[in-house]
């Protein structure tokens, strides 16, 4: 009985792992797409890490969590970080070319303008800081 339970648990973990891998691959695809669009958005490159933040005026989690997180991060890092905020309702073309399906979405670019991370949904300050440190 317990061995069967363990086997089923292992199957569940395996299937979830496959799903997470597929999600990771989809994010990698988004990042590779973003790489082709950086030059049109940032010209010239600021030569420092950049967060491209897609939002909309009525997005509640953007107001309550994402924007305060980015403000805190900007205070902490000062001139070492550049944040580009894009209103997806004003720039649906950019949202489309960057493959943004929901807001908030944040892309993290390194100093060479290469998109390294994408966060679909709210990304808290700790997570963003961790990502910036590994850019």
């Amino acid at each position, binding site marked *: 009985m317990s061995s069967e339970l363990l086997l089923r*648990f292992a199957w569940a973990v395996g299937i979830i792992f496959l799903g997470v891998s597929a999600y990771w691959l989809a994010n990698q695809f988004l990042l590779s797409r973003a790489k082709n669009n950086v030059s049109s958005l940032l010209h010239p490159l600021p030569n420092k890490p950049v967060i491209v933040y897609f939002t909309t005026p009525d997005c509640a*989690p953007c107001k309550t969590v994402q924007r305060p997180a980015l403000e805190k991060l900007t205070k902490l890092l000062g001139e070492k970080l550049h944040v580009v905020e894009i209103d997806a309702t004003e720039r649906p073309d950019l949202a489309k070319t960057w493959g943004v399906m929901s807001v908030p979405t944040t892309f993290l670019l390194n100093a060479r303008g290469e998109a390294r991370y994408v966060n679909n949904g709210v990304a808290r300050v700790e997570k963003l800081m961790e990502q910036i440190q590994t850019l």
Partner: protein
Amino acid sequence: MTSQTLQKVDHSALKTNQLFIIFLNILAFILNQPILTAFVAFVMGIGAVLKTPGFGFIYKSILKPRGWMKPDVLNDNPEPHRFSQIIGFAFLLAGSIALFLGSAGLGWTLVWIVIALASLNAFGGFCVGCAVYYWLARLGVPSFGKQPPAGTTPGAKPKAGATA
């Protein structure tokens, strides 16, 4: 695009529903309890009849009042989400019947399809059932009359402030 009126749809209620569907079905698979899958199908069926997310009552009565989940109200069409729930219900009902008839492979495959699609919706913001609804509307199938909100990919979560 035809003119239509969008309604306020709380996506947090939808997300709660999806998370419960995912959790309970995975639990049903691990414990090998088709009755749990049948229970999820039953709740989704009730939700489909009442035109509300099946497990949305947990969000409304517990999660939202205690502030554990914040409302995420967007201008959207509720019909595609209802259709999506009906599709999920049908899959789980078929899965439950298959499991009770001893066809474990078919039954659990159907259950995992529901888990995968609910996960895509909950974590990726893409509702496959809604996309199917909008495709059927495009094909002119009767009673599938709604169009996706302006600037929204069919099936994708609408951007806040979206218009008809």
